[in-house]
């Protein structure tokens, strides 16, 4: 991206189209809000989409052999890799039949110039927490199914997602990646031996996880109290006052809704509109996103 700005300084023969592109890029950097307003006035967004259009999703599972389950999701340009690692632990004293599901999202410096290397930023922490809430409330992996021996040994599923390219809407992309990775996970058959007080796993027998509901999320943003944008990009995200995320399960039923900010568009409350738009988008594009099996 920086290369474009240095090349225009050279030749007098650089075409006017290149100069226009440079002017547009400068305007976008200096006045992002006005830039977006000009586009929305024409009912279109800077990347060419309609206001209610969703980016294409591609899900690729099982490519990482060191993980027990893995998925790579591309939501437009936003790329998230998720891997599931299973370890064995002792259950909590007050819930001897429950295993653990530990999701985490990492937004490292590689994915965007706005993240600096170091401990997780506020954004990463908030997203991890929201993902944890959705995974727990949707019951994707019932914790009793992770029990090896009540009170002695249970599975701990570490679901770690790393964003490789951040172009907005990391929440939707990460939820897709985590659910796809869990669906892809195969655990070795484990047996707890009372005599040695150890758990041993079989190399030969592997079982898939017991999967409950499969949540998928649809995020929206409200710009300036006037426009509702579906699936915001990284350019649009900082300019939004309100974000709404609607989570649906594999039957199109509502699982959860999260809203940050005032949900008013003009004079109407926008929440029901978002839920309907999400169900519509689910029917059109995401019904089979997790595949048949």
């Amino acid at each position, binding site marked *: 991206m920086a*290369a474009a700005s240095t090349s225009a300084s050279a030749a007098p023969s650089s075409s006017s189209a290149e100069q226009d592109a440079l002017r547009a890029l400068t305007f976008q950097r200096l006045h992002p809000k006005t830039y977006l307003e000009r586009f929305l006035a024409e009912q279109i967004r800077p990347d060419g989409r309609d206001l209610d259009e969703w980016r294409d999703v591609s899900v690729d599972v099982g490519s990482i052999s060191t993980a027990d389950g893995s998925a790579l999701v591309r939501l437009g340009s936003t*790329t998230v890799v998720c*891997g599931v*690692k299973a370890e064995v632990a002792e259950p909590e004293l007050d819930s001897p039949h429950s295993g653990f599901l530990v999701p985490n999202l990492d937004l*490292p410096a590689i*994915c965007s110039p706005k993240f600096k290397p170091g401990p997780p930023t506020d954004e990463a922490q908030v997203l991890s927490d929201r993902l944890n809430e959705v995974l727990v409330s949707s019951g994707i992996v019932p914790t009793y199914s992770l029990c090896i021996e009540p009170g002695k040994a249970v599975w*701990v599923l570490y679901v770690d997602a790393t964003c490789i390219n951040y172009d907005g809407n990391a929440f939707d992309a990460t939820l897709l990646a985590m659910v796809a990775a869990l669906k892809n996970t195969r655990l070795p058959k484990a047996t707890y031996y009372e005599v040695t007080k150890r758990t041993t796993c079989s*190399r030969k027998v592997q079982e898939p996880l017991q999967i409950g509901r499969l949540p998928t999320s649809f995020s929206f943003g409200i710009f300036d109290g006037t426009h509702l944008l579906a699936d915001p990009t990284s350019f649009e995200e900082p300019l939004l006052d309100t974000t709404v995320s609607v989570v649906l399960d594999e039957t199109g039923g509502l699982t959860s809704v999260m809203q940050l900010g005032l949900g008013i568009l003009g004079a109407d409350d926008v929440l029901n509109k978002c839920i309907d738009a999400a169900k519509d988008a689910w029917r059109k594009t995401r019904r089979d996103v997790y595949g048949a099996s």
Partner: protein
Amino acid sequence: MAQSNFDRRRINGPEESYQPIFEHDEDERETRWKPGNPRKGRAPRNIRPIFLKAGLINQANGSAYIETEKTKIACAVYGPRQSKTTVYSEKGRLNVEVKFAPFSCTKRRVPIRDAEDRSVAVQIQQALVPSLRLELLPKSTIDIFVTIIENDGIEGCIAAGSVAASVALADAGIEMLGLVASCSAAVVGQELWLDPTNEEGQAASGSLVLAAMPALGTVTSVWQTGSMTPAEAIQGMEACQECCADIHTVMAQSLLENAQNT
């Protein structure tokens, strides 16, 4: 055994959890490599096929993704950008940061950065610094971020990481003297094997990583660990240098394809 690390910035699991222990498998014992056996699946001087693509991360100034069978690495370059320090520096700074994804190794890696991340980063930096024209970028820093998505042999990771970083730097348009290609080798028994996997690296008595600029015919860095005779080390370096010339062709090809597609 995992130590208890309560990290208040992440969702935590139980205090302690253990990597699953597998039963003894007699068949596996039979198929494991023993001294005197030939290499499994490849000739000793063959490297794993490389898939290399530039420009996958559009948020960065330059980026590359490399895949060699089971090693998968993504690399992004941000820069040149202003140095955060107030000290004036005539030459630009090259800052390399390496991160292993928690699911990249057989045993889960805790997200806290440790010494292995740092040592891989230093080796990649040493391989790249001689190739860049940092004297043209005073007061600036070039940040290279490497994320290792899957790890099959640490020497292979260092080599692949250097290759990806060099392609990403070229993709970012940073002036350089030449592309840096890198290759690893290991001494297993009496033989020299190029590009060892994790299993082969563990059976090896010594290993070597060499980074070179084939366009100029110079070597930028050599790291040798473990035990090998000086003759084996020289033999290894020569084999790696020959291999770097082939890797350079793959790198140039991927940059050309990327330029033609945009």
